[in-house]
């Protein structure tokens, strides 16, 4: 089995570097920044690190149910496919800046895609 992209790009230390890049993009992007406008930026950044760790295949024990719960309030505020698309785009930009190959970025995007329905509270919960 090949190692995860998480390991290939440097594990936890790489996530610490990625989170500032990613979070800065998210806050600067008017398509999605309203969802991240919490006052507690440090907590938000930690959640973004959890997101990055998960989609790069790093250690986590999130389930589809967790993803529904984590985003349920956002769905109530209007979260839809366009926002997921924007997040996946910003994710790709972030990884590119960190030197991750296009091929690997596609794999990461696929992991993000795999929970799209859960993030948007669609279909059946697992």
């Amino acid at each position, binding site marked *: 089995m090949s190692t995860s992209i998480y390991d290939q790009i440097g594990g*936890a*230390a790489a*996530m*610490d570097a990625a*989170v*500032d890049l990613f*979070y*800065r993009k998210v*806050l*600067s992007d008017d398509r999605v920044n309203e969802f991240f406008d919490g*006052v507690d*930026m*440090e*907590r938000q*950044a*930690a*959640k973004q*690190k*959890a997101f990055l*760790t*998960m989609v790069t295949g*790093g*250690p*986590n*024990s*999130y389930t589809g149910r*967790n993803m529904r719960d*984590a985003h349920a309030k956002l769905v109530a505020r209007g979260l839809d496919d366009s926002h997921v698309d924007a997040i996946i785009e910003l994710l790709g930009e972030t990884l590119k800046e960190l030197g991750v190959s296009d091929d690997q970025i596609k794999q990461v995007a696929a992991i993000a895609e795999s929970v799209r329905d859960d993030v948007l509270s669609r279909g059946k919960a697992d």
Partner: protein
Amino acid sequence: MPKLRFAERDLEIAGGATVLETLEAAGIDVPNSCRAGACQSCLMQAVAGEVPEEARRGVSPAKRELGHFLACVCRPTADLEVARVGGSEAIAATIAAIRRCPGDVLEVRLRGAERLDYRGGQFITLLRDDGLARPYSLASVGGAAELELHVRHFADGAMSGWLARAAPGVEVAIRGPYGECFYVADDLERPLLLVGTGTGLAPLYGIVREALAAGHRGPITLLHGARRAADLYHRDELAALAAAHDNLEVVASALDATGDDDMTATPIDALALERAAAADRGALRVYLCGAPALVNGLRRRLFIAGVPLRSILADAFLPAATGGA
């Protein structure tokens, strides 16, 4: 097998179990989410014993100094005592002196709380004997005999109105310390930028004096802002500090500054962004204290301008708390 101590209970740590798993097995609830060391939901505090480095990965320097760690990835190899973050008992103290300063600020000095292990810039909760409680930042340097608080006096403020009339010798209690807004001596050369409005100067005054006492050599800029020039307090103290230290620059900003009063009319957020842009952003550490609109707005703008989030320590004074007290 190592033991885990929590709230006066000794728990066996089953082979390879984490602190989170051990507490849960004992029926103790700890907030958690990713259970993999990424989201920081399970942050706890070590009281005694060693925390494996693995459980401190990604934890900020200030939190590390406070012994914070991630319970979900902490597998102790020796006995460890832990607590929830922020829990503490009340300590008795006595009002030693109260001085009226410009800007309706009361400088309150407390004695008798030598037991309090704190760092300048952290905050405490001040408790009156009837239970009235308000948070105030510590303007004094950790280890000083007297605690120094800067309290904005509001005519209708429950605590501040009472303090304005309180005589030396009155007994109070304090709980704390809390917060991560303090000086960390991990690099004596890094530039420091301290920005505060109103009594946001209190934590900054503690932080800047701790930095200087620690022998900080990098450039330190302290920006203190107020709407009216007449509301800027502690100007002589700050001028004396700057005169004694070549690496410290103090800039006062007030919207009605005329230019010949040794102040600038440039708004404090513009000054802060200007200074941050000119500094080595990788090394810079920023402290933001005072009005929430300024603190939260500036934190976001500095972050977007390229200052790492970890390097911005912020303490927003919420209106119901320090501001309205």
